């Protein structure tokens, strides 16, 4: 595999050459500092671009064209990376070897038609298309509780920090949805194309000279852009006393979610010992939480922890019976305290290191993951992934204890199911 990054002025082009795949994968990412009031608009924009474009006036025409281009796939996605909203479109298509000459170029042109040549008249998107997307968005916003795990996490973050980006609902807000018009949506689109910082990644087996000229031909952004603010959220101090928040719902299982802010850590600590600490604590089927809460006490079926480096936060999630709430929190607290006291073995550390290695080694199996890895490296200070394995191997137990001491339980949320 070979990686080259080219600065094309108005965007970075990342070329990842590998002959491991029968497909070529391309991802275009628009970075913008996140604004709460724009979240819904950005979601609607992402969806309306896939309803029609100048060249394909209906979604059906668009899909039929994608089928004719040997079933290419296009995925749209919006994700928060710390202080930023990342708006992306991903194209995956069979290599020309399996289709016909120029199928890849036609596919890239197709993506560019969708993104750069939207279905606009009189400086506005089409009314009927906007109505379809708004209706879909409204249904999504009405049905958030149908995913109780996601819902409880969202409510946890809202309790944890009322103001900050961590509390923003990435699905959007109904009150903002009603404010979107076909005109202001187009203004937002122009603003995004004009001002968002852009990365384009492409992974697969292709000729670099040819692919650069194709991408230059179909993706032209005029302005040179800079990233204005840090991706990483400010560190939040842990409350002196834990905050408990609760909401009732009609369910037989309750969802427990706990926010644990991480105090100041060095880049090394975040990229290495913290990763191991999380795997040991709740990041695998062999974790301490899994063993203590599920296997020893039969309190749950699912339990895990995850870490967001950009948010400086660890989140613990479990599905429990509401009668076991106190007991579960007690076991989790005890488990975290034990970690701070160093009650884990060298074997636990080695297992975590092996799981990490396996994770790193399997990145190359999937072009989407390779691309996301290079995207992360644009945002977070990280070593190349070959170097990471070596550095990780040298992490000592004392480093891991040190990071555990910087993780504290702050807000505990229970989505309480009241059906017996």
């Amino acid at each position, binding site marked *: 595999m070979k990686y080259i990054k080219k600065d094309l002025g108005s965007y970075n082009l990342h070329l990842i050459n590998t002959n*491991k*795949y*029968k*497909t070529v994968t391309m991802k275009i990412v628009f970075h913008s500092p996140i604004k709460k009031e724009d979240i819904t608009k950005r979601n609607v924009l992402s969806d309306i671009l896939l309803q029609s474009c100048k060249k394909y006036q*209906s*979604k*059906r025409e668009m*899909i*039929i064209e994608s*089928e*004719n281009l*040997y*079933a290419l796939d296009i995925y749209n996605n919006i994700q928060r990376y710390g202080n930023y909203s990342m708006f992306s479109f991903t194209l995956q298509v*069979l290599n020309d070897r*399996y*289709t016909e000459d120029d199928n890849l170029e036609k596919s890239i042109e197709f993506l560019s038609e969708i993104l750069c040549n939207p279905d606009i008249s009189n400086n506005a998107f089409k009314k*009927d298309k906007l*109505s*379809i997307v708004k*209706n879909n968005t409204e*249904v*999504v916003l*009405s*049905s958030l*509780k*149908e995913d*109780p795990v996601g819902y409880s996490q969202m409510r946890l973050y809202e309790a944890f920090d009322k103001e900050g980006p961590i509390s923003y609902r990435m699905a959007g807000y109904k009150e903002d949805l009603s404010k979107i018009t076909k005109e202001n949506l187009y203004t937002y689109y122009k603003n995004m194309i004009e001002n968002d910082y852009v990365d384009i990644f492409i992974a697969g087996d292709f000729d670099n000279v040819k692919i650069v000229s194709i991408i230059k031909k179909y993706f032209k952004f005029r302005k040179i852009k800079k990233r204005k603010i840090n991706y990483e959220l400010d560190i939040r101090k842990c409350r002196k006393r834990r905050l408990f928040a609760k909401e009732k719902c*009609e*369910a*037989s*299982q309750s969802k427990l979610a706990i926010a644990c802010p991480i105090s100041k850590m060095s880049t090394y600590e975040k990229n290495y010992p913290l990763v191991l600490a999380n795997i040991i604590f709740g990041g*695998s*089927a*062999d974790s301490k939480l*899994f*063993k203590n809460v*599920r*296997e020893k006490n*039969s*309190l*749950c*079926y*699912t339990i895990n922890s995850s870490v967001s480096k950009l948010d400086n936060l660890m989140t613990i999630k479990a*599905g*429990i*019976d509401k009668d076991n709430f106190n007991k579960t929190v007690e076991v989790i607290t005890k488990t975290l305290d034990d970690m701070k006291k160093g009650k884990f073995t060298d074997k636990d550390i*080695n*297992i975590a290191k*092996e*799981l*990490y*290695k*396996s994770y790193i*080694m*399997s990145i*190359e*199996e*999937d*072009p989407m993951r390779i691309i996301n890895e290079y995207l992360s490296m644009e945002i977070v200070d990280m070593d190349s992934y070959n170097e990471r394995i070596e550095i990780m191997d040298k992490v000592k137990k004392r480093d891991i204890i040190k990071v555990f001491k910087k993780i504290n339980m702050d807000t505990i949320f229970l989505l309480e*199911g009241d059906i017996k």
Partner: protein
Amino acid sequence: MKEIELTSLDIKLYTEKLDNGLEVYMLPYKDKKKYFISYATRYGSDVLKFDVDGEEYAPPLGVAHYLEHKLFEEESGIDPFTFFSESGTDGNASTSYDYTQYICYGTKKFDENLRYLVQFVNRPYFTDENVLKEKGIISEEIKMYNDIPDYKLEIKLREMIYNSLSRKYDIAGTIDEINKITKEDLYKCYNSFYVPNNMFILIVGNFDCKSAINIIKEELDSKISVNLPKIHNVNENDKVNKKELIIKEDIEVPKIGIGLKVPSKNLKLNDVELDLYLNMITTILFGSSSEFRERVRVEELLNDIYSEWESTDNFKTFYLYATSKYPDKLVEEINYEFDNLSVTTTAFNRIKKVWIANEVKTVDNVYRMENNVYDDIISYGKPIANRVELIRNMDIKVLRNLIKKIKFDNRCILKMYSKDKKKL
């Protein structure tokens, strides 16, 4: 070892059958780092009643899934997850209607992990105490699924389609039923169905076939094939159990479920081709590039849709689930499609092209490939090596003939509304 070329996909499959009946399927990749091993038994929640020592035996519902959980119990106290994790390998298991599988996937220590996988599955250790311990865990698993509206929709729809078949029950059983399960139940089911002639191993990814076969033989050659018990099948009516039903749940936007039950005995196509043609019908009718989808999109009648086919011994069943603010209108549109069924050559050929492209794309992904081969083994008894050719050779005349033979009115319609009257 037999070598089978998967046509048009540049990849070869190797198979071997041990004297005791255990089947081994291997799909090695040269350029991948990961491997994926599945050790499976053709036993799942479909078996409701069978003979043990000459007597009829009907274990509590959910026993196959319970058994899957408990096989991870080891007398040594070493957890299989821990063993696998030591080499950065993940382990897992799953139970379905017609199989239970134990899997591990990783990048290292292939030999050790393969050996361990087949060892621990062949080393049941059930005690009163460890069986009791699992009740809390599985109860939470059952509750977790039962809280999901889409899951309730599926279970209800299954009850409407089938009158007696096992497919009307939740694979995991119910909390009342699992509370009855004892270690004796687990041993009876284990000893009856976890036998080499009812099991297979599938390996995909980065590994060496010869050493895999050697390990499997070392570990399992000495196992003796055992006659499978007589399974008592239930009689299932050709017709759907209930045509229409409305239920109310804690949701905001209504959902619908539609089931089409097709008795497959007299359709005169082999199973693989029958599945392809049936899938073609519903893809043309309801797929993303169908006229139906464009119409309901423009009329804002559809927010979400998902559909699939299911196979049982005597039936092919189509499930369609959708979310809509206007469920009555949407159902009318779906009914219209079934009642005015027509297929065009253009759509037919386009879908064929899409399917062939998707077959090639799948090869890139070890997991998806594993999944496809696995499904083939479960559904057809063997991997289908020439699927691309079968798709290429599909004939619209055969499709039109098949359409004539199917009773498309053998359907049921389930509507799920909000409990709250103020909502939709």
